């Protein structure tokens, strides 16, 4: 093993990536864990916004629909990096003003909470459109049958609309999840120690840029591959009532 690494000239890289100090492997994994935590939180927060937003766009009044159109348009028009800066500083500023108004001192927003808030709002705009399309693809007869049997609106949503649209939404949601995992890298700009920032620090301290960024790239790829497997399974489950037609994820 050692000879093989020697022969390939990888001994130094392995030492740098070791999980024990002075290796930086543990830092990278900690960064990955933070990235995934934020991505999962932002995805969930975005889904909640998206479901509410899609229902608002489809069933809401004129004012609500206009407000949601502004939200989805603006968020999708502005580059995410800019949005992250705006939402991060506006978010912390608002929080501090609220804290001051309530008589508390300055509060420090935790990196994870800030990241979830910022990326969640971005994800919510895209999720609104994904879920709106999926809901519109549900045959109206299924909702009509639910209403005809006396189901209250929220029960219709929970028991019929959401499960019936999931199959249509799954490919779009898988995209959103992958985007969420990679958008966490943008949080490096506000100093949040997710995978990219940890990588950068490790690389800068050791001058082994190639090794560390390649390792980070491999970790992102691993996340994507595993996500693909999980989402393919979820899509199969969500489409369980549909006869197979052509390919699947």
């Amino acid at each position, binding site marked *: 093993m050692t000879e093989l690494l020697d022969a390939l000239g990888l001994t130094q890289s392995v030492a740098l990536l070791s999980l024990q100090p002075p290796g930086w492997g543990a830092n990278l994994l900690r960064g990955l864990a933070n990235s995934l935590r934020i991505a999962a939180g932002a995805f969930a927060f975005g889904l909640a916004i998206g479901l509410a937003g899609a229902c608002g766009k489809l069933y809401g009044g004129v004012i609500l629909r206009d407000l949601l159109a502004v939200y989805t348009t603006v968020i999708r028009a502005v580059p995410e990096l800019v949005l992250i800066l705006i939402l991060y500083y506006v978010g912390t500023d608002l929080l501090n003003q609220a804290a001051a108004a309530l008589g508390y001192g300055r509060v420090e927003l935790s990196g994870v909470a800030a990241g979830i808030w910022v990326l969640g709002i971005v994800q919510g705009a895209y999720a609104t459109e994904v879920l709106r399309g999926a809901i519109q693809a549900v*045959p109206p*007869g*299924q909702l*009509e*049958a*639910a*209403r*005809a*049997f*006396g*189901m*209250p609106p929220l*029960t219709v949503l929970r*028991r*019929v609309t959401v*499960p*019936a649209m*999931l*199959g249509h939404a799954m490919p779009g949601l898988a995209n959103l999840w992958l985007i969420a995992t990679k958008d966490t890298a943008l949080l490096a700009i506000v100093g949040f120690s997710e995978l990219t920032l940890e990588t950068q620090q490790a690389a800068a301290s050791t001058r082994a840029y190639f090794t560390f960024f390649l390792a980070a790239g491999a970790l992102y790829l691993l996340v994507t591959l595993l996500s693909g497997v999980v989402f393919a399974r979820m899509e199969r489950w*969500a489409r*369980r*009532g*549909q*006869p197979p037609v052509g390919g699947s994820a």
Partner: protein
Amino acid sequence: MEPEHPHEAAVAVEVQDLHKSFGGLEVLRGVSLKARRGEVVAIIGGSGSGKSTMLRCINFLETPSAGRIVVDGEPVAVRPDGAPADRRQIERIRTRLAMVFQAFNLWTHRTLLENVTEVPIHVLKVSRRDAEARARALLDRVGLADKADTYPAFLSGGQQQRAAIARALAVDPSVMLFDEPTSALDPELVGEVLGVIRDLAAESRTMLIVTHEMAFAREVADHVVFLLDGRIEEEGPPDRVLGRPRSARLRQFLGAVA
């Protein structure tokens, strides 16, 4: 409400002077009819005569423009715009009106058993055990006992419609509303669905059936209503309405569908 003839059964559903317009198009222009408990009323008429709209106004899938719907003696309260005034009331009334649709409208993400237990469990709050036992008995009754765990898309139209009838029976409705239940079926599958409905008529279920099957209407209905341009052109016992029609338009219609 007192029955007109005390010796007859109570009125299960009554439609009073029903009007319905879509934009400028007046589809129903004052239709009144009633079904007593145990009675089978067949509603016939050409396409565009308003028969499906009439049925869909009874459970407020369509909002009547004017008129009154009374179910088991309870009038549906409406706002000035005709929509139900009290969501809980219309939901409660809807659980007593089970509808069978032309396109079946089964929930495709649920198995037949789940389709049949859905409303009992999640609307009527029946225990899962009781609901499933009853659903299995109903599926057995419509000849689908072995398909309980199958998803609707894997079944024929006739099987799906029989499952939809089991779903309707599961709520133990006062009135069953059939909206052209065999119109979407291949000809060889019509018989199996009509057979199930025929059995229901034999056990004195109250049913309103919009249909194009004249022979079937004549066989199972106690009362036949012929709709024409949003009005009742002729009605009465099936043998008379379908056998010796008075209206020239009805004679013409029967000649065309025969």
